[in-house]
């Protein structure tokens, strides 16, 4: 039996199906339930309706927190993209010994368990009066998302041919123009990628937000957290679906950007 190709093929098939079910089923179920016509969480739903999405968009708690999430995400992602890209550029031109050390410091928020970052930032921001302010949340999200931008852009710069900048200079382009006309267009797919990453991380972020937010300034994930711990109705499924679709959209956008630039889809 061990030698039969059919046996091994069948076993692999079973493994694949089980994996897909394990990884996807919860998300699919949430997705389906969010369109349920029932008044409580039940599966399969007796019918379909958009009532939970209506509830979500008519309930000021959800709309306000969703808007807060966006108000944090957009500036944080933009700032992380600008700072991360600038840092990646500077590091790519630095002496490798120093670059390595600085890079390690900038990447630290990705490596250090987020609970530590959250507690530390909370403690200090409270003293600085940034607790419960949008600015505090934005700053914290920049810290958390910058490493993603830095690493995606750095990976691109590592294969970027620096002589193209020399060629541009030789053609008469001052450094800033050479950067804008040659370097930036060529690394823009990875900058885009990094920004999408930053947006998704910020939009989904819970731990740091949990520490820094107050009922007045509260992103949607924190609201979800407190609702899940209390009573759960399918509105949360609708919110979860929105969050999930947002990530999926970002993933698709990234895939398209990568394909257009001819790079392999990264893992």
């Amino acid at each position: 039996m061990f030698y039969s190709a059919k046996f091994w093929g069948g076993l692999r098939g079973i493994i694949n199906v089980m994996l897909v079910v394990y990884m996807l089923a919860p998300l699919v179920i949430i997705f389906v339930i969010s369109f349920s016509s029932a008044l409580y969480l039940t599966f399969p739903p007796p019918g379909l309706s958009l009532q939970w999405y209506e509830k979500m968009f008519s309930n000021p708690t959800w709309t306000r927190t969703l808007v807060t999430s966006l108000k944090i995400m957009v500036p944080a992602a933009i700032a992380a993209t600008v700072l991360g890209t600038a840092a990646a550029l500077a590091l790519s031109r630095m002496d490798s010994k120093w670059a390595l050390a600085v890079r390690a410091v900038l990447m630290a928020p990705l490596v250090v368990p987020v609970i530590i970052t959250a507690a530390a930032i909370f403690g200090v921001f409270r003293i600085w009066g940034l607790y419960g302010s949008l600015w505090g949340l934005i700053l914290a999200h920049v810290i958390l998302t910058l490493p993603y931008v830095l690493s995606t852009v750095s990976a691109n710069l590592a294969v970027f041919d620096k002589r193209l900048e020399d060629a541009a200079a030789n053609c008469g382009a001052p450094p800033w123009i050479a950067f804008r006309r040659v370097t930036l267009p060529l690394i823009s797919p990875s900058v885009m990628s990094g920004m999408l990453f930053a947006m998704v991380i910020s939009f989904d972020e819970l731990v740091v937000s949990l520490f820094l937010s107050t009922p007045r300034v509260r992103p949607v994930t924190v609201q979800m957290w407190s609702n899940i711990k209390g009573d759960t109705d399918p509105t949360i499924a609708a919110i979860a679906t929105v969050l999930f679709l947002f990530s999926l959209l970002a993933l698709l956008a990234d895939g398209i950007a990568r394909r257009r630039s001819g790079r392999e889809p990264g893992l």
Partner: protein
Amino acid sequence: MTAGNRTLWLLIPAVLLIGVCFLYPVSWLLQRSVSEPVWGLQNYIAIFSKSIYLGVLWNTVAIAGATTILCALIGFPVAYSMVHARPWIRKLLIFVVLIPFWTSILVRSFAWLVILQRGGIINDILVGIGMIAEPLDIVYNRFGVLLGMVQVLLPFMVFPLYSVMARIDGSFFRAATNLGATPVRAFFRVYLPLCLPGLGTGAMLVFIIALGYFITPALLGGRGDIMIAQLIFERIDEFGDWPLASALAIVLLIGTGLLFAIIKGVSKLRRGRI
């Protein structure tokens, strides 16, 4: 070259931000852990001597360890299947395994809650078809925590394994059995040792990341499954007990740091040997 100096200023904003809003806060945490209520190591001594804290430390290591073992047991066949699948199936599997990278842990933990809770889908179905009379407790316990964590951390095991397996010649089974080894022997004597580097890296990554986990155990676990991250949160959020929370955070930081150093050292050794 001077080009480096000319662009050095581009680093300043990022370094400044990380320095002021990350490095300083972490060092502030370290300071609080040793300076309150008086200077000394009393908070650390408390963590390593009081049974409630020791219990949480043990939980943390036990849950991270169990997650690692489960990830290895599931990740191994998954990675193998991925390597030997047809291209489009492989792409699908990679996409599926990568989903955790892209979806909020909160969303996925919530999904498990919907499926597993007493009034959840599984209990509904099982009670509905009459297999059980009373709903089962399959969440708010260790089982729920592990189910959720393994799903989130699986990619960290699968991808290192995948990259190692992809380099092993597929015909090894035939070669080994041809030389007289039984398939089981061939697997343990030849294939498994070849996969060990990937397995080691994956296991370390899963373990380290699991140590600091917060959301999944907090949502899917019970009172007996509190991990260190949750304890830090509660100490600050409910009691404002900064000295102890800081000390716990520093213990976690040092623990992760040490494990990372070990990974680095091992991979350096391995590279040195080849």
